């Protein structure tokens, strides 16, 4: 339904993005290259994960387990603000535990820097769900770092953000998560034309997207209309 018109249009949209925070140094939390066991470039990580996906996909479909991801999240009777539980989550992320495929952040996050570092090092998480409380406790800048790390997950297939999902639009456009199939962005404020343009550009660069769920908040009918036409 949607087609990429040109890379220039995407780059235009990227450069015009403005949510009032200015430029962010996304290398600040980039721990992937510094980790001893994962000292490879982003490109090789991505291509490796894509190849692995392509090889395994048929087997998964045949076995009927493609959608049957194991659930490990902050929701399992513990809170993200519980240091002990977060320790377990970050350990699973850092060690690339193959059974740890779903990350759900549903409460305020105690140590955001460590979590972001762990996400940047991870290659197994397929589904991410972020609740309102998880983002509310973070500064705007940390929200952007977190969004950037999540959108750069090489195995990301499902992303659900309940609030402030606008902060994920630019990282989606930047990293273009190749495997992303399900995207749900709630309470999007696209009242400015540049944001509409970025949203549309971001959607155009997701080749495997099959399910899109967008909720606009703080946007009048004309703004919604601008995003649709």
């Amino acid at each position, binding site marked *: *339904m*949607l*087609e990429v018109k040109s890379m220039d249009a995407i780059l235009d949209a990227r450069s015009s993005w403005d949510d009032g925070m200015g430029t962010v140094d996304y290398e600040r939390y980039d721990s992937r290259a510094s980790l001893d066991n994962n000292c490879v470039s982003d490109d090789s990580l991505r291509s490796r994960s894509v190849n692995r996906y392509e090889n395994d996909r048929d087997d998964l479909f045949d076995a009927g387990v493609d959608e049957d991801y194991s659930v490990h999240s902050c929701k399992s009777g513990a809170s993200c603000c519980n240091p002990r539980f977060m320790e377990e989550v970050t350990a699973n992320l850092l060690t690339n535990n193959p059974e740890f495929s779903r990350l759900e952040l549903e409460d305020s996050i105690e140590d955001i820097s460590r979590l972001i570092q762990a996400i940047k090092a991870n290659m197994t998480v397929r589904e991410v769900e972020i609740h309102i409380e998880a983002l509310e406790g973070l500064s705007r800048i940390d929200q952007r770092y977190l969004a950037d790390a999540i959108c750069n997950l090489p195995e990301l297939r499902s992303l659900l953000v309940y609030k402030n999902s606008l902060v994920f639009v630019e990282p989606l456009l930047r990293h273009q998560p190749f495997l992303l199939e399900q995207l*749900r962005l*709630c*309470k999007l404020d696209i009242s400015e034309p540049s944001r509409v343009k970025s949203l549309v550009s971001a*959607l*155009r660069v*997701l*080749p*495997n*997207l*099959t*399910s*899109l*769920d*967008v*909720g*606009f*908040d*703080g*946007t009048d*009918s004309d703004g*919604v*209309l601008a995003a*649709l*036409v």
Partner: protein
Amino acid sequence: MYLECFRIDYKLQDNDDTDSADSKSDSLLDHRIVVAIAEAVEQSRTLKLLSLPPFSCTELCYEKLINMLQRNTTLERIDYWVRICNLYYPDANEKIDDLLHLNQSGARRLVRQDNVSAREILQFVTDRNRNDDLDSLYHLLLSRPSVLPTPQIERRH
């Protein structure tokens, strides 16, 4: 992009005075938005589910959706709503629901498809008959009676 599911939602202004004329119009889906969605969806051959915001549809919205469905043969479900006492419930429109049902069964795709094999037709008729889906069978026979294979009668001299 091969979208199969598209849901859209947006929050209208909160209005405490539900009796005012403004609040009534706010609870109705802006038909311009439906027109934009309908135009985008009309040509899609992958989308199966469309979910509109939980606001009551105007008659104009229904009309736009029906016009879209006259051309789109892949969309199988549309979520649209009716408002009753400040609560929203799934709405139903006979024409829309009929078209969606025919899309679900594949009858409309079969009618419009070129080069349909007799085997495909037979499979469809058998399946629909097994599911008691006579509406789809009726639509197929009415729209394209020639699709049914004619019996070969051997003449003996």
